């Protein structure tokens, strides 16, 4: 039983990060119908920028996070304006391919500027951990759980009550009608990308603190795909919850069955679930009118 609890807790610890990354994917898909294949790379870029900042000035963890939030928002806005805005009006698939091209570019830039060595993100909570009876967690992992809860709550409040949030939901539902109703759709896109970048930045800093930085950090973005598919590509809350589910599932399958099942259990699960619910657990089915 102990073993089970330990596995579940460590599953939650990695799952909240999948959830955070997944929320970013879901938000962009929800607002713009584009799967942002560069999400993992943006996360990597911001975490490396955080590395440079943390190396030059000693900041407390929350200070670093705050600075990263600002930087991520700017990065998100810049990327949206330069790469995505010009693709407005074109096929969604083309925009998706642009994000893929962007991903390749960011990967090269990161190695160009910071080199290929694995790096440690110097934060003041780096190695500290907390003990809860049986369970040991890094302080950063606790923060991750807290941050996910905060982001989920924040997104909920934003989408439900704020003007821009409602506008975003309207754009996601029916873009042309939203335009007719006077919503500035380009602004909605920009804000969606900025928020997604912020979430990516937060997850990047967390990943960097817990596991360290490396030029292959973008693969964690791929690992979060099962989470966002399971939850439904356009469901932000679904992504958060499925992230935790997938994290726990991966750890349990690795712990009890083993054989490197951790890597593919997520993908196997989504294959099965998608056959039953083709739009994910919480996704909205696309109604096609012929």
């Amino acid at each position, binding site marked *: 039983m102990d073993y089970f609890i330990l596995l579940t807790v460590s599953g939650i610890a990695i799952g909240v990060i999948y959830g955070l990354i997944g929320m970013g994917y879901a938000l962009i*898909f929800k607002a713009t119908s584009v*799967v942002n294949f560069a999400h993992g790379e943006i996360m990597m870029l911001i975490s490396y920028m955080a590395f440079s900042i943390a190396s030059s000035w000693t900041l407390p963890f929350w200070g670093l996070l705050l600075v990263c939030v600002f930087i991520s928002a700017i990065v998100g806005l810049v990327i949206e304006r330069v*790469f995505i805005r*010009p*693709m407005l009006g*074109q*096929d969604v*698939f*083309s*925009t*998706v*391919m*642009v994000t*893929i*091209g*962007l*991903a*390749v*570019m*960011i*990967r*090269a*830039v990161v*190695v*160009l500027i910071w*080199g290929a060595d694995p790096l440690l993100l110097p934060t003041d909570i780096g190695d500290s951990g907390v003990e809860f009876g049986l369970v040991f967690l890094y302080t950063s992992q606790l923060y991750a759980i807290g941050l996910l809860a905060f982001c989920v709550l924040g997104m909920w409040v934003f989408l439900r009550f704020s003007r821009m949030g409602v506008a975003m939901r309207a754009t996601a539902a029916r873009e042309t009608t939203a335009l007719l109703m006077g919503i500035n759709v380009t602004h909605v896109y920009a804000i969606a990308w900025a928020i997604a970048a912020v979430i990516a930045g937060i997850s990047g800093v967390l990943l960097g603190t817990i596991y360290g930085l490396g030029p292959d950090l973008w693969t964690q973005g*791929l690992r979060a*795909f*099962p989470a966002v*598919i399971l939850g439904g*590509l356009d469901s932000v809350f679904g992504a958060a919850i499925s992230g935790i589910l997938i994290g726990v599932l991966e750890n349990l399958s690795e712990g009890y069955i083993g*054989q*490197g099942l951790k*890597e*593919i259990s997520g*993908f*196997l699960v*989504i*294959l099965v679930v*998608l*056959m039953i619910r*083709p*739009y*994910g657990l919480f996704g909205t089915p*696309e109604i*096609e009118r*012929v």
Partner: protein
Amino acid sequence: MRTGVFEESYSELISLYRNPTQTYWTVALVLAALVAPLLLTNHLTSLVNGMMIAAVGVIGLNLLTGTTGLISFGQAGFLAVGGYTAAVLSADYGMPLWLCLPASGLMAAAFGLIVGIPSLRLKGLYLAITTMAFTIIITHIILSAESITHGSSGISTPKPAIFGVELATDKSFYYLILAILTLAILGSANIKRSRIGRAFLAIREQDIAARVMGVPVARYKLYAFVVSSFYVGVAGALMAYHIRFVNVDSFSLVISIEAVSMIIVGGLGSTAGAVIGVVFVLGLAEVLNYVIGSMGGTLGSVSVLELKGFIYGLTIVLFLRFEPEGLMGIYREYKNRWVNWPFRY
């Protein structure tokens, strides 16, 4: 400007080329292709071989994604299946090349059938990511099934030989690949003009409406997967013979994404576009390698080499931004202007 082109008999209707000029140019192309290895160095022939092999695979992908509209990032998985089948059959069981190639294609087609089943339920990007999941699962299976696939050590394939004639050098192998590529192009062009091809197009445009019109959508979607995976499997087998070594490393997800970028750069939906897309993307990679390699000099600054990846990604982005119809789009536009001159349309 071309006028007075009438189709007066059935054979004229179904012929590939309506126009003597087109025929002459095609013959010239074929002659050039036949003569090429005699003019190029071994190294360049090897590069061209690589391009042609990629072209076979990408033509298959084009049938699936371009013609039928089913976005698939699973190409790396099918390449791996094809490559490993050929490697295992030729290295461990000593089967000759002319058996291994179709065997690899059929094996990949079988996997394609399995991967195609989700496509009956899933649409668009959900399908794309599911195919990605399959690539990862297939890679995992290959690593685990060590008794057959030698796990992670990889397999070294023997030299390609057909009917006793050894095709050890790149130049001689070139002709075999050329033959297969021609068959692939003809096959793809014919499928597109046939009933099956029209069904594919219907599915791409609006599959529910296609079903209403009597197209058995489920069956044709599976056909699309099976046929395209067959192509890709054969390409994988050729790759195994070309590089003489298969290993899971060569079949990563990045390959799938590269393949899709090739058809987009070439022009979605056209066979010629697939070939041109391959030539452009691979050619660009080589040119960049050469240019930046010589800039890096004798290791002037090693980091400069990373620029390769950057420029590669940038090219794809620029292409999509400015030329969404791809190279075929540019070609068609200029051809139309030429044909219709002095009129605009």
